């Protein structure tokens, strides 16, 4: 790059004042859209993402339907105003790829065999991006699925881990993502103790990957608790009114 970017302060804190294994402040709200069957909104640091779910509904055109299970269709999209410079609203190569990656990460959780010949549409709209949008989008999308009443094996939470200046970091922001040495998004399901998304960009040693993975699992467990709280909050609102 040739630019000199300082990612850590003198006291070892990160550019936004966090410690190495600290998550950005997270706010989750479920059931934010009345027109969608299920929806969720997440703010993770400066990321602002909304997810909506429609379906299961009849798969059209009919030839795309599967006789034994439903299809998941996922659309990850960044709004033109989500970045500092206007982003073209047309789906980019990255967005098309991420849509596929997120669909693959959600598919193991959905009990697709209960709704043969149907389709579930998942929309993930990034309103403001600051690194780690695929992870935050996935965290919101699974809540939108649960909000829609779609049977799931469990919830999945996602968080990126990575390396910058030789240090392993949790929940990378845009700066750390761009100028760091590696970035590894992980989606983890605590119920099944399984990983549904694991990607890596950059270089890390085997030991570093192991350390990063363990940090990611701890972080996603924290996020899973927040997801559960948000879902309970959504459905217990009615009780407080009583």
């Amino acid at each position, binding site marked *: 790059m040739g630019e000199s970017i300082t990612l850590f302060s003198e006291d070892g804190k990160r550019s936004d004042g966090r410690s190495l294994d600290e998550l950005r402040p997270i706010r989750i709200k479920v059931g934010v859209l009345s027109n969608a069957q299920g929806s969720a909104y997440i703010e993770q640091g400066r990321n602002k993402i909304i997810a909506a779910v429609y379906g299961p509904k009849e798969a059209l055109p009919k030839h795309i339907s599967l006789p034994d299970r439903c299809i998941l269709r996922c659309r990850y999209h960044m709004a033109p105003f989500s970045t500092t410079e206007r982003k073209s609203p047309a789906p980019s190569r990255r967005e098309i790829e991420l849509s596929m990656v997120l669909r693959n990460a959600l598919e193991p959780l959905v009990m697709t065999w209960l709704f043969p010949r149907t389709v579930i549409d998942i929309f993930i709209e990034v309103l403001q991006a600051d690194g780690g949008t695929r992870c935050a989008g996935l965290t919101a999308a699974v809540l939108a699925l649960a909000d829609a009443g779609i049977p799931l094996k469990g*919830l999945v939470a996602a968080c990126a881990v990575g390396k910058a200046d030789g240090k392993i970091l949790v929940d990378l922001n845009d700066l750390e993502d761009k100028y760091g040495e590696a970035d590894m998004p992980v989606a983890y399901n605590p119920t099944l103790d399984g990983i549904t998304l694991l990607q890596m960009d950059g270089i890390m040693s085997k030991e570093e990957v192991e350390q990063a993975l363990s940090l990611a699992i701890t972080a996603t467990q924290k996020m899973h608790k927040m997801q559960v709280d948000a879902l309970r909050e959504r459905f217990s609102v009615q009780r407080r009114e*009583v």
Partner: protein
Amino acid sequence: MRGNEQQQRQRPIVVPGEYVGDSKFHIPGLNVYRLSDRMLATTVGLVRIDGKRVDVVALKSFYQPKVGDLVVGIVKEPGTAGWTVDINSPFLAFLPLSEYPEKRIRLSRDSIGRILEAGTVLVGLIKDASIFSSPVITLKGKGLGVVSNGFLLSITASKVPRLIGKKGSMLSTIEKGANVKLTVGQNGRLIVHSEDLNVVMKVKEVIGMIEKESHVYGLTERVEALLAGRRP
């Protein structure tokens, strides 16, 4: 005192993947699956244990057609041998010409779309439902057929049993309280057989209350109070 009792009777809300029982003592019921020796919930709902069986009563769900269910459908599209009917389910139902009660239909004279237009509301019975094909409905039977007047309301399919109540108790409470006849489909749609908007609005309010508070103790009393014009 009543508040405490009410709180005690409020069961905790479980979320997908949450532990609801042990396979040594329980068998999985509705919205529950088994993972080695653990029983886990698949939807957001409330745990109900009936003997060994563990169910999660979903707070939001879809209608899964079952043979013998009374459903309120809306004709979506006339086809060549019958009609496609929206039954408020992920699956579109099919009403074949043979299940239409008219004895003689001359297709040379009447087009299918003229017999039942798109948008027609009907009360049907699920005749066939399997995972391999679309559910089939029939209009042949007592109380079945096209609905010519009334208002259409809806409720989450999982709340229909609560709306009907034990042996139809809740339904008769509403019918008596609002002095109106209701047809409730298992698919979460109901018809209010009345032209009086005040009655319809009252029933709508009651339905909204059942949908929101079906899991809270003392619902029948609150419904009765609402129907009597007192704020519960």
